[in-house]
């Protein structure tokens, strides 16, 4: 009897410990995602990226922390001033994307983020990187869309690339604009969010649609 009780107690405390860890992870992720909602400056993005980086250092079997660390470094790169700093951020993002890709090589979200990082590198120096990286980014967005045709981020990023190209060549932007519009209901449908799955991107699609009107 004693032994059984001890066993039960040990079992419960073991579960509790695990749950405690689990809840700490959820708490840390939730805190990070909350912080993500309030970012403005380059430094804010870098700080939030650092937050996810710390989670990623502890939780090595989930791709979400890696994903958000990379996403925030990419966003920091868009806001940074010098080419060196921009490249520093995208280099760092690459490390986390590679880790996430190892865990979830066939996840449309992670693949789309890989393309987003190329887009950020392209934006840093379009003159000399445009030709090479636009091809690469388009190809990866295409891959992300084919993995999940319902992923609004993959679709919106793809539309963004196509829009830029069409504008450059003075050809019709109708195609990318139509597909950008299609993503809005998709974004809205997922707004409640499940777990830590990415839900960002509606602002990007809306901004693109606004540009389409012009």
């Amino acid at each position, binding site marked *: 009897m*004693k032994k059984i*009780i*001890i066993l039960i*107690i040990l079992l419960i*405390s073991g579960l*509790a410990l695990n749950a405690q860890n689990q809840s*700490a*992870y959820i*708490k*840390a992720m939730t805190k990070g995602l909350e912080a993500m909602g309030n970012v403005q400056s380059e*430094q804010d993005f*870098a*700080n939030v990226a*650092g*937050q996810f*980086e*710390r*989670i990623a*250092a*502890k939780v090595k079997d989930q791709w979400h922390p890696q994903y958000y660390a990379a996403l925030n470094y990419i966003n920091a790169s868009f806001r940074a001033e*010098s*080419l*060196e700093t921009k*490249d*520093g951020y995208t280099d*760092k993002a690459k490390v986390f994307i590679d880790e996430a890709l190892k865990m979830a090589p066939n996840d449309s979200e992670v693949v789309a983020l890989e393309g987003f990082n190329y887009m950020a590198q392209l934006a840093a120096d379009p*003159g*000399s*990187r445009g*030709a*090479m990286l636009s*091809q*690469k980014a*388009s*190809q990866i967005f*295409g891959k992300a869309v084919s993995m999940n045709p319902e992923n609004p981020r993959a679709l919106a990023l793809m539309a963004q690339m*196509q829009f830029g*190209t069409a504008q*450059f*060549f*003075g*050809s019709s932007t109708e195609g990318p604009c139509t597909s950008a519009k299609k993503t809005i209901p998709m974004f809205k449908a997922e707004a409640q969010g499940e777990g830590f799955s990415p839900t960002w991107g509606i602002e990007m699609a809306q901004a693109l649609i606004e540009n389409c009107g012009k």
Partner: protein
Amino acid sequence: MKTQIFVILALMVAASMVNAQTIISGVVTDQKGETLPGANIYLKDTFDGTNSKADGTFSFETEETGNQILVISFIGFKTLERPVDLSASALEVNISLKEEINKVDGVTIAAGAFEASDVKKVTVLKPLDIVTTASAAGDIMGAINTLPGTATVGESGRLFVRGGEGYETKVFIDGMEARNAFGATAPNVPTRGRFSPFLFKGTIFSTGGYSAEYGQALSSALVLNSNDIAAETQGDVSLMSVGGDAAYTKRWEKTSLSGKIQHTDLRPYQDLVKQAFDWEKAPVSTVGEIVFRQKVKSNGWLKVYANADQSNFIIRQPNINRGGLKDTINLSNDYFYLNATYKDILSSKLSIRGGVSTTSNAENIIFNRDKVNGKEVGAHFKLGLNWDASERVVVNFGTEYFHKKFERAIDPASEAAVQFDFTDNITSSFVEADYFASNKFILRAGLRFENSSLLNQSWASPRLAASYKVGEKGQFSFAYGSFLQAPQNQYALVNTDLKPEEATHYILNYQYIHDGRVFRIEGYQKDYKNLVKFSSPNDFNPLNYNNAGFGQAKGVDIFWRDSKTVKNTDYWVSYSYVDSERNYQDFSISGTPSFLSSHNFSWVIKHFVQPLRTQFGATYNYASTRPFHNPNLPGFQNDGTPAFHDLSLNAAILFKQNIILYLSSSNVLGRDNVFGYQYANSPNAQGVFERQAVRQAAKRFIFVGLFITLTKNGQENQLRNL
């Protein structure tokens, strides 16, 4: 008993619930005491941590207790782990991070080398620049010829570097030798590089002092790095004023395979545009290429490239010794090149690369009625290792084997045929260590060892280089090295005991790179010895050939590039000064060779006009007078040609996403450039040596090309190619 256990357990659980809080705060600085914002500070294996603020300070709360490890990480610095005791309610930790040695983007060995690369961030040129240069007309060598250290030698088309002859530059593809990298040609008919610039993602053009990994080149190494796996399945079609090509690329997950057929025929063009050269049959060539890429496991790459090229032409050249009667030169060339390389990462500290390349080049020439058939077969095997010996030391070492067989059959119409041949096998090893003293100072020491089977002799050539970074943007570099090259085929053929020629380089360089602007100045001194000397070029007596030749070259190269000041505009300016004399070949005394012009200047500009979706480009090349020997005057190399001027223009128009139109013209001003003079062997009745000028093939070369790319979604173009 039961209750006791419960109580103890309850207490234990409670203890872990009642968490003591500790506030950890402090400042993060670098070794010099400068504060570091944005560093990541956290307790290992917990979720607790923060980033340092703009002033380097940080502060965070934790509920952890006891002995923990505080981790501080920041880009460019070594991650620090420090044990902390969280028994108190507040803990102040001040941290000084040590700079991490950056082996990729930190200080680099820059003396002598011009690198065009996408991989490294700080480079002088981008791969794209090679093909968008107006005067290049799609030839890699044409673009390289706008860089300092090169001299314009219009009748040759080869790379003449720092007082060196064309043969002193050696071409490598993915580290493997590429013999006969220039097309076969007749005297005074300019040639082009054989390899399409579209095959390569990066280029290192070294004008001296290069790594011990490269040998058998006296003056310069041009290292071409080929593209990785193709992006996607696509077809390409090009229609050009001088021919056309069709290519197809198939992409699988880990593999890509491309095939290309190119046919060049200058006959229709030359019928249309008046030529100064008298072509009986304009050059025609057919090139087939195969490119194969395979990813092996996670880090291995197998690359195979094959090029087969068949070309021929017949040209008539006036002969001053035959009263202007023309010699007919009928040349046909069969060329094959195969390059296969493999590289892989063996461990975090060791990477391996190896490969094999073979070249077969047969040139059959009919000079009037005399036949000269030459064939060169070369093979190169290489195995190299890169070892990250420590945080500060990288060692690059390997071994190579070069095989060369050259044969020449001379079958004159009036005399008996003669045949010569020789085989040389060179075994070599190289070892080179880079020592990163800090992120500001790097030292490289290397040694190359070669043994020739033909001569049964061995040589060791030392190399030394160092770079010191001054501030964020500037850097001084120094390089020294001894460089050996086996004598040219036509001399080794006659006398197989000739030693390799030797050049010693001393280079001092200053480079400033910042924000789209590059400034470089480089001074050098080059000493030649053991150059081949002979009494007359058409002598087949081995005793009349020796290694008594010598010479030197010294000069200054300056490069300035600015892509920032004017929007959508990028330009660069190169200036080279060289002072050189040698006593080699059939020179009677020391003199400046005829290929050398003291001052060379290039100006390259590219401007993109967004509304027209067109990139316009211009190149202006200048070369000062070139010496030649005028037998009507006393002295040696005693006269000079007029200076060389060329203004070339080009435009690339992006018609549609998948269609590009490319136009270029050389020498738009139509200047009649003279490269030198050929004098008669004996004087005429008045006692004067008559002469004829060596000139351009035509006033201008005009190129029009339409490049079309076909993909499933129609998104791609050959933009990256232009």
